[in-house]
């Protein structure tokens, strides 16, 4: 019997999202949180990563507006959100006009269906 393969971390993340849960990994060795999902901790290189659900609370770390013509869907926000657990998510704040999304803004994560897949987006909180 060859060595069993571990569960794919990308698939596990997607499966949690499909269940309506936003989960990230935590390293059992250095206790730091990890995102995106991996098999080894990028901080201490330990291999005891376990999954936990995030609080969903975060703060906008950086933000921009991608400009496009109205007939192509108009401008939209692209941002990076620092989550309470210490990981950073790429994302989009929905609700405010894209240029009104500001660094330091408190946001909350939400799962929405987009293009047939669950996706984490953010709302002002």
């Amino acid at each position, binding site marked *: 019997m060859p060595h069993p393969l571990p569960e794919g971390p*990308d698939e596990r993340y997607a499966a949690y999202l499909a269940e309506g849960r936003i989960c990230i990994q935590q390293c059992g060795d250095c206790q730091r949180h990890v*995102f*995106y999902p991996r098999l080894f901790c990028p901080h201490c290189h330990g291999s005891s990563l376990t999954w936990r659900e995030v609080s969903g609370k975060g703060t906008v*770390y*950086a*933000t*921009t*507006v*991608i*400009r496009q013509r109205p007939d192509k869907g108009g401008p*939209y926000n*692209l*941002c*990076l959100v620092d989550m309470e657990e210490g990981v*950073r*998510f*790429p*994302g*989009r704040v929905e609700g405010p006009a894209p*240029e009104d999304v500001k*660094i*330091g803004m408190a946001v909350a994560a939400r799962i929405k269906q*987009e*293009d047939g*897949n669950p*996706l984490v987006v953010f709302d002002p909180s």
Partner: protein
Amino acid sequence: MSFRGKVAAVGVGLAGIGEAPGLSHLDLTAMAAKQALDEAGLSFSDVDGLFAANLQNIFAPLNVGEYLGIRPKLSEGTQIGGSSPVAHLIWAALALDAGLIDTALICYGSTQRSVAGKLLSPSTSEPLIYEMPYGPRYPISSYALSTSRHMYEYGTTREQLADVAVAARQWAALNPDAFMRGPLTRDEVIDARMICDPFTVRDCCLVTDGAGAVVLTRSDRARDCNREPVYLLGAAMAHWHRQISQLPDLTQTCASETGPRAFEMAGLKPAEIDVLELYDAFSINPIMFLEDLGFCAKGEGGPFVENGGIAPGGRLPVNTNGGGLSCVHPGMYGIFTVIEAIQQLRGDCGDRQVADAKTAISHGNGGHFSSQVTAIWGVQETL
């Protein structure tokens, strides 16, 4: 390990700068390579080390070697984005110093302007699955995110960013090879079409064709070549991330690591550098690199470049060819930071020549502020 002064550039070539309809990227690469070898008084048959990476061939050394009729003993095709040709300097220096090769040809070519849409696009050939669902516009949106943070933390202004583009244009006006040479004002930069906040189209590098080549050899052999050698005094590379969402502090790149390492090898300090060629994919880049490389403190890059700080006649000559913003940017700009540095130290630069330039820096950037490579050059008396 130091290769300070062990190798020297003995020839450079440029081809198809701007638009080169009807020619392939390999045609342009060959033209640049021929020019570089001719300058050195060497021929294709002398090349035994080939260094090539581009956006149109996955196995670039194979395509370039085959086209040129070169059968290298050693080739190297590190592809870490636009900084790659600067990184190739390191491997070329090591291979030359070790005696594995005698003549290194580093070359790059692209027809990004003429074949728009037919490039190997890093953003579509390699899905970055956690960022891409949000519709980033690579690479500009990653640099825009970084800029938002730099403005937030340090008060860097829209006007300071514009002044980087204006300075580049003023240098380009002095360079007959530059693609965009017309006058450009701060207001014109700010009022141009917004692409990705805070960047307008004038904060973004050009999309051009173009090729460049550099020939290096060991310093003892370099003295027999046609042109005066320009010596590689130090070089260092680093990368910390691929995707901008994985860079811990968006206001600091790993140029903060490559700068000190390259300066240590060169035995020089930032204040001793006469000419700077800093990869300017976007107007934020020179601001970031002036800080990270130690030419000013973190957060002071904006005031440093403001009101002509890096323009002709300013406090420090930066991107003297007009840079990626106004001279040439065919997908990957790194080789042009090398060529301009060498030309400045040979005194070849005509109206844009920096007087008495004895030391220069070529700084390459790749990906989304991802890879950074710093090379420091000097003339004979700096050895």
